[in-house]
């Protein structure tokens, strides 16, 4: 299984910035979603960031929220997400990061054990919860799990089980993160730092936040772990300016998810449009500014 370390080393050798598309698993349904993700891989994705749909995605804007709803309505759940990831890995050995909300990890396997019995706690039930979750998803081919609603203060609740399952850790840094916290975040990160380009939730934006460049520079001075930038990255030009600022990877989510939304009647058109768009971004990321 390809590791983040291998992937980022490859890109460094080729003087490239990683192209990291984001999709919600099962949006709009299992088969269409799988076809879209495969098309994105074929179009040159270096790493995949995949979201598990949640009923209350507080870190996401309307575009990804709607994708979550589409995926859940078509029956996406954690067992099916495991199957989805296995199929992607059969297509190509590409590093996969999950982006999700904490309650799903906490409840993993619990419903199966407890049924709808009230008040059964995770710690009372064997073989459920975070430990089992990380083990199962690592076996399916996942490299890391980023928990959107878990700050570095509570990271120890998951880093232990994640590391012992063989996963890398990925945490977020935002433009308002204090330098001290940045250091703590960097120290707990083994995969990459997911750098949020702006104050806000996910979503396409016209212009890229001006805070990005300074943020990347600051992080680079604090740590050697790879820095990937997401939230509001919507055009090849945005991607290029992030690459030029020194980022190791560019994460594009809402723009791609919007393409799925606008092609719900024609799944093949969605794959095609996404592949073409990613091709343009890939080209924009091909040659980094040489004065770095």
């Amino acid at each position, binding site marked *: 299984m390809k590791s983040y370390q291998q992937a980022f080393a490859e890109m460094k050798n080729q003087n490239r910035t990683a192209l990291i598309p984001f999709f919600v698993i099962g949006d709009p349904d299992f088969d269409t979603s799988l076809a879209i993700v495969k098309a994105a891989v074929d179009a040159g994705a270096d790493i995949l960031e995949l979201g598990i749909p949640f009923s209350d995605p507080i*870190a996401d804007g309307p575009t990804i929220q709607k994708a979550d709803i589409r995926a859940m309505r078509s029956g996406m759940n954690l067992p099916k997400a495991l199957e989805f990831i296995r199929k992607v890995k059969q297509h190509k050995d590409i590093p996969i990061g999950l982006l999700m909300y904490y*309650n799903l990890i906490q409840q993993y396997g*619990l*419903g199966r054990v407890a049924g709808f019995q*009230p*008040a059964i706690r995770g710690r009372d039930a064997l073989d459920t919860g975070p430990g089992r979750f990380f083990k199962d998803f690592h076996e399916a081919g996942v490299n890391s799990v980023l928990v959107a609603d878990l700050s570095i203060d509570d990271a120890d609740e998951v880093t232990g089980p994640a590391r012992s399952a063989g996963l890398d850790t990925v945490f977020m840094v935002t433009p308002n993160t204090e330098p001290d916290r940045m250091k703590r975040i960097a120290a707990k990160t083994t995969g990459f730092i997911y750098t949020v380009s702006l104050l806000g939730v996910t979503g396409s934006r016209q212009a890229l936040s001006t805070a990005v460049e300074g943020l990347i520079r600051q992080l680079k001075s604090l740590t050697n772990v790879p820095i990937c930038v997401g939230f509001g990255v919507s055009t090849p030009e945005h991607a290029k300016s992030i690459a030029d600022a020194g980022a190791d990877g560019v994460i594009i989510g809402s723009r791609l998810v919007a393409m799925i939304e606008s092609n719900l009647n024609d799944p093949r058109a969605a794959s095609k449009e996404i592949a073409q768009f990613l091709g343009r971004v890939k080209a924009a990321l091909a040659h980094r500014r040489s004065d770095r």
Partner: protein
Amino acid sequence: MKHSGRFGEYGGYYVPEVLIPALEELEEAFDRFHEDKAFVAELAQLYKDYAGRPSPLYHTRRFSEYVGFHVYLKREDLLHGGAHKINNSLGQGLLAKYMGKTKLIAETGAGQHGLATSMVGALLGMKTKIFMGVTDIERQSVNVHKMRLCGAEVVPVEGGTGTLKDAINDALRYWTANVTDTFYLFGSAAGPHPYPTIVKHFQSCIGRETRQQCLEQAGRLPDMVVACVGGGSNAIGMFAGFLDDKGVRLIGVEAGGKGLKTGKHAASLTAGRVGILHGARAYLLQDENGQVLDTESISAGLDYAAVGPEHCYLKDTGRAEYVAAEDDEVLDTFELLTKLEGILPALESTHALAYIVSQKGKLPPETVAIVNLSGRGDKDVGIVEKARSESIADCGFGPLG
């Protein structure tokens, strides 16, 4: 953060990293100001002259006679705005002012917290945005008009079932993008730390006054104190006055909706499983995969899938008991109290009264029970009328029956 915000295993602050600086700033400001002399004096003045505190404790006459023991009502319904929500909105609004913030946002279910925050926004001259689910906007339209008259912008939220949970989601999203100049005035004793602690602090005047008033009127402490629980702000404010009085039973009443067996309810403590929503670990109504379930209740203010973390702790330790009252009992009780006492209770508070009615004839006549009448029911008259005409139609007694 300085404190963990835990009540036993519950609470905490499970939020995206981007919200941490705002929560830290809030925690620091609360620590600094809540016992500050000038702050305390200004808030006390506003409680008295603006909100109408202390609210009376009323020994019901015919209602007590009906149930067969002494029932006292803490009349939070008489406060400005018609509910206990003003206590917390004044406290947090003033805190926002001391912090130098210029804009307020809030979520609302029944509209009582939205209204209280809109009033405080007008009072303090702050720009105010209220996030409210589309379902709630429809069923509580009078409160929406009042908020707009106070100068607030009411933002309709369409996600999910268009109720309180969805309003909180969108308020959190908005706050994430506007953390620098905006104060999120959270209305319930739920959400991420430090909100459960802050809301309890500003609502604890209810319990403090009640304890004193009961000693004066009944000559002793009550046997039980009863309050409705959605997120749990009025209940925790009332319970706060009696936590150390071990002989006083604390009873929280959740929304049983159409009945716990139907799955159409909002009784997180009674029928939920521990989970994480809106920044806190708490009892949560969720499916087997951990997706949060839609809730249902006749009262918009209790229509919430989670509950404040301190209530979870009080349940586990056995200090408080939690039960559920169903919509039908609530409707009957609404009419009963109005007929016997001439007091229209909010449907939320009526849940607590319904528990009292369920104890009719089961308790010794010298029992002293206090119900927190957390809000007035004027806003609910239309809902009750509609529910009654529907249930008559269901029975085949409609115009064509």
